């Protein structure tokens, strides 16, 4: 073996040093790296947990909010600043049907109208007056407001929707009632006043026909006033009835007899069919029941065209009840009117086969009175009908105890 070349020595020495340095630095780096990794991982994991917790809280909040929104009986619709609908709750969907309906309705316009309007420091600023719009047969009341974030930045607009169909209907009905009542009360009043003038200014005994007309109109006026009082009692829920034994067959004939001039004038024919006549006795208020059934008959007369038929039937339902039915071949009741026909002052838009609107005189409370009176006697009344197919009103009353 030869002695190592000094140059060789230095080279191997250098190599050795480099190697040591390398492994040392590797160790250092690896240690450094490992330490760093551990810390970063911990931090990441902590952060992760925090985010998960936050997410959980937020999704719980969101769920809570969604279930509140879904349970609300008011519709909530929110639009962001770009005009997109970001929230439509269950009731709002029900009111609007679909999003297109919304944009086609005046409510959609309302949203767009307020798109550029800025809110204030408050988080919810109502804008303008509440608006009403008719959508899908309903009247929807809407109030629009700006939604702002914590720093007062505008997040969008929110619209609260409420079904105000009944209130709106109520207002319209009241207006109709005022017009109707002034006309209905004035007509008999005019006759009474006029006839009295005529009688007073003519010599000799007044003729029989004049006196009869006078008496009939006094009776009409009297009846209207009593019924108006009845209606206010009925609306208040207080209603007292007399209890007499009433023979139903006799009652029906009196009801039909009372309207025979109008039936004749309208060119209608009315049949009365009674089964188990001797068993048909009710206990109650003769006058009010006569009016109640009279309203059912009058309704049939009003909504049936010349040449039509009306059938009034009575029979035993079971040992304790009897059924009275009034059926006609008239205009029938539209589906959308059906839920309201027994409401006070409500009048459906019934049309003849030729499309003419039937608009009878009267106060529009006949069926309301009929139902309340029958209910006050422990019974009930319901209607079945299809447009153009006539209507059937069925009243069930408890039989009188022996």
């Amino acid at each position, binding site marked *: 073996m030869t002695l190592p070349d000094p140059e060789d020595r230095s080279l191997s020495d250098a190599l050795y040093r480099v190697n040591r340095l390398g492994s040392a630095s590797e160790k250092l780096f690896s240690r450094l790296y490992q330490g760093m990794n551990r810390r970063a991982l911990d931090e990441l994991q902590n952060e992760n947990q925090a985010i998960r917790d936050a997410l959980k809280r937020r999704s719980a909040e969101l769920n809570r909010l969604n279930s509140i929104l879904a349970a609300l009986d008011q519709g909530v619709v929110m639009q962001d600043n770009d005009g997109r609908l970001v929230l439509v709750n269950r009731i709002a969907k029900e009111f609007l049907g679909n999003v297109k309906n919304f944009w086609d309705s005046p409510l959609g316009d309302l949203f767009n109208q307020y798109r550029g309007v800025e809110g204030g420091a408050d988080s919810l600023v109502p804008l303008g007056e509440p608006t009403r719009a008719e959508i899908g047969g309903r009247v929807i009341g809407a109030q629009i407001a700006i939604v702002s974030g914590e720093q007062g930045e505008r997040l969008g607009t929110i619209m609260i929707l409420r079904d105000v169909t009944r209130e709106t209907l109520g207002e319209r009905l009241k207006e109709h009632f005022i*017009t109707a009542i*002034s*006309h209905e009360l*004035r*007509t*008999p*009043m*005019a*006759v009474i*006043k*006029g*006839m009295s*003038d*005529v009688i007073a*200014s*003519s010599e000799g005994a007044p003729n029989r*026909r*004049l006196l009869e*007309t006078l008496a*009939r*109109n006094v009776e009409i006026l009297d009846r209207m006033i009593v019924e108006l009082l009845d209606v206010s009692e009925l609306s208040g829920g207080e209603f007292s009835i007399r209890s007499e034994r009433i023979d139903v067959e006799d009652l029906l004939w009196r009801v039909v007899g009372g309207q025979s*001039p109008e039936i004749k*004038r309208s060119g209608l024919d009315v049949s009365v069919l009674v089964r188990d006549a001797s068993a048909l006795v009710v206990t109650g208020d003769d006058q009010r029941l006569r009016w109640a059934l009279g309203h059912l008959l009058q309704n049939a007369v009003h909504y049936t065209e010349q040449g039509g038929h009306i059938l009034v039937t009575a029979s035993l339902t079971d040992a304790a009840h009897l059924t009275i039915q009034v059926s006609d071949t008239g205009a029938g009741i539209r589906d959308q009117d059906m839920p309201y026909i027994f409401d006070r002052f409500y009048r459906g838009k019934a049309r003849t086969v030729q499309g003419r609107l039937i608009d009878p005189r009267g106060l529009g409370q006949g069926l309301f009175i009929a139902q309340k009176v029958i209910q006050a006697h422990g019974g009930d009344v319901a209607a079945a009908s299809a447009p153009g197919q006539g209507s059937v009103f069925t009243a069930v009353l408890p039989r009188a105890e022996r």
Partner: protein
Amino acid sequence: MLLWLVAEDEPDIRVLVATMIQVWGHVPVTFENGQKVWDWLDRFEKGAGMTIPDLILMDIRMPGKRGNELAQRMRTMPQLEQIPIVLMTAFALSDSERAEMMREGGVDHIIGKPLPDFEQLRATLHKLIEQKRTTT
């Protein structure tokens, strides 16, 4: 003795007005709805011999034809052109509705229901007949 045409669908009001007219010494000719008056005008135009009324008194809201529609047609017929036409209504009319009926329907007077006092009504209607007579 004058002939007065009365069209009113409310039977009791019709009887009342007819009775008043008789008490005033005239003869009422009554129609129970607008369509019947329309049919009568048809026959009249076809040349059926009929007495021309001295005054025409009609309700506005009647089944078939409304009083103002009838008035408008009557004004196109030479025989009825100058006959006073009076409409009756139980409903409040706006000034513009009133003016339109007077102008386009050629209506001379509109009375509200409840009808005015017996004496007042008599005076109003007779004055109207007099006015028309002197102007023609």
